[in-house]
């Protein structure tokens, strides 16, 4: 090989040739529905089920027709507040609007009615849409937005407010922090947006491969926007500190991955100074998962994923989801539980199980009072996301009509 371009062609073709047509397509095509085989190492429901276009479209058409003809019965989250039909709307006493960010394609942000789920006005951005990475609020009124250029090593923070009628104010930049706040769950703000908690990776680190992801050094920072002072803790990207960031309304308690830390703690290692709320395996034997079409079948084994941890606004409780893994170490998404960890007593309680539900609280967000959470789950009839309100006091679920939600992050 003489030139870099020739070497590239050679390497690309060598890699591409690892995809053998006979290894990919025949099994997918020949497998009838009930006998479709899943290859080890693949996700729980990602088998290649290939049928003629007409049949698929027909099924979708039927599903759509059924969706139109039948009343909506809280499809995404199992039985809502009532088993008899659609759950009644929970009367909200908190801000009636939240901000949602669609981030999987070209990011955008818009206002959503928290009671109905109806999408409102889009929020204009004073920077390229592709730079939008996160939005957060601690009181439903003052929002902080993170803008990170893909190849940059800093993040600009903007601020805007939402009026009581859901009208957003213009966005203004107020500070710049080092490192990339690279995804929607990497930032949280306290009430009034005084404290901003965020995760970054060391600049220059790529996280496109498993090994690199595991080895990446992460930073959890809390910035006091009034004094300009900040504090930082480190974590490994494959450790319990990696994951959803949340902060109490006062800014005194921060959640990061499966860890919770008091912000009065000295800077340094998050693992040394934080507190792990739950560990993999902690709820293993008690979780009953449905597999495929075999309702009630229990997977034995200790592996449970902990995800979507959020510290409540009062800083007293950490809410999180648990998932089971299958024997291929893949999460079983069709069932999850919402649990609450009392930071004072160390006791964990089950808030609610979501049997037969695809989804989880990746977008879980509290209303400012901490009573309600909005979570997401997957609609079974289309590539959109269900949103629902959970009353953390009663466990009641109210489905929102959020057909706009492709894969949102939410700030409430």
């Amino acid at each position: 090989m003489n030139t870099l371009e020739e070497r590239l062609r050679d390497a690309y073709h060598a890699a591409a040739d690892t995809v053998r047509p006979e290894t990919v397509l025949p099994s997918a095509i020949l497998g009838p529905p009930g006998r479709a085989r899943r290859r080890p190492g693949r996700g729980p429901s990602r088998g290649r089920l290939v049928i003629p276009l007409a049949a698929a479209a027909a099924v979708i058409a039927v599903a759509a027709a059924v969706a139109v003809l039948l009343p909506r019965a809280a499809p995404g989250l199992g039985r809502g507040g009532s088993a008899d039909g659609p759950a009644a709307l929970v009367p909200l006493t908190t801000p009636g609007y939240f901000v949602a960010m669609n981030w999987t394609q070209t990011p955008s942000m818009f206002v959503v009615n928290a009671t109905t789920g109806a999408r409102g006005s889009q929020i204009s951005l004073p920077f390229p849409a592709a730079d939008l990475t996160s939005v957060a609020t601690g009181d439903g009124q003052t929002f902080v937005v993170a803008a990170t250029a893909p190849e940059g090593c800093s993040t600009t923070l903007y601020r805007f407010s939402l009026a009581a009628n859901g009208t957003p104010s213009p966005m203004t930049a107020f500070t710049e922090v080092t490192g990339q706040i690279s995804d929607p769950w990497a930032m949280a703000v306290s009430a009034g947006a005084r404290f901003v908690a965020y995760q970054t990776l060391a600049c220059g680190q790529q996280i496109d491969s498993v090994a690199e992801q595991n080895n990446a050094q992460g930073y959890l920072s809390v910035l006091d926007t009034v004094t300009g002072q900040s504090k930082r803790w480190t974590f490994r990207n494959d450790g319990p500190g990696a994951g959803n960031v949340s902060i109490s309304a006062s800014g005194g308690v921060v959640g990061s991955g499966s860890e919770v830390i008091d912000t009065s703690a000295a800077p340094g290692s998050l693992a040394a100074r934080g507190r792990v709320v739950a560990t993999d395996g902690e709820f293993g034997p008690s979780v009953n998962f449905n597999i495929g079409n075999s309702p009630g079948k229990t997977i034995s084994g200790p592996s449970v994923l902990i995800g979507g941890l959020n510290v409540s606004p009062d800083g007293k409780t950490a809410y999180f989801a648990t998932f089971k893994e299958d024997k291929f170490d893949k999460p079983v998404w069709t069932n999850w539980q919402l649990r609450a960890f009392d930071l004072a007593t160390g006791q964990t309680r089950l808030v609610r199980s979501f049997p037969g539900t695809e989804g989880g609280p990746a977008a879980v967000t509290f209303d400012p009072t901490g009573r309600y959470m909005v979570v997401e789950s997957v609609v079974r009839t289309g590539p959109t996301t269900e949103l629902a309100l959970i009353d953390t006091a009663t466990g009641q679920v109210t489905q929102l009509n959020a057909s706009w939600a492709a894969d949102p992050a939410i700030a409430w």
Partner: protein
Amino acid sequence: MTSDHKQSGRIRSKVATRPVLPGPAEPGPAEPATAEPATAEPANADSAGGDLVDDLFRVHAVTLVRVAMLLLGDQPSAEDVVQDAFFGLYRSLPKLKDRSKALPYLRASVVNGSRSVLRSRQRAVRRGVHHEPPVWSAESAAMAGEDRKALLAAVARLPRRAREVLALRYYLDLADHEIAAALGVSRATVSSTASRALAALGRELQEEL
């Protein structure tokens, strides 16, 4: 939510339903002999459209899976992306006035779908869910040649757009204007991105030596 579980391919499979594609033809065997019979005519595509998708699938599916694999590093994710791309094409046929644009549409869909998967992976990793190692990783035995692996590992460290440009240019041998159409950028951007990517690769490989 996330991660790979939210790929629309999975959602559709949950619908019982199963999408979507006709069978391959490229080297491969297999006629879809036991594929399920159609139970109704699709609402949004005529039979000529179905033939078009069939033909495109027969000729290009494997190549598109390979391109997606080069962007994603693993075959199962690549298959999902391509399947979604064909499904999207099928649904968009009524709006596709110029059917010669179907292949560019597919390429763009594959690129966009791959971006979506990569973003989902970042999210999944934060939950502790890791995807399969790329074929060029040290732990993968799928691909031979340490030099090749090192080169593609270096490519994987480039910015996303650079990786896309290089794969489309040096695997698919697309012209810059075709790459521009697939990525939704200008030809000048393709050219400058490729130039910078090659320079960066050259520097990195030089350093490794």
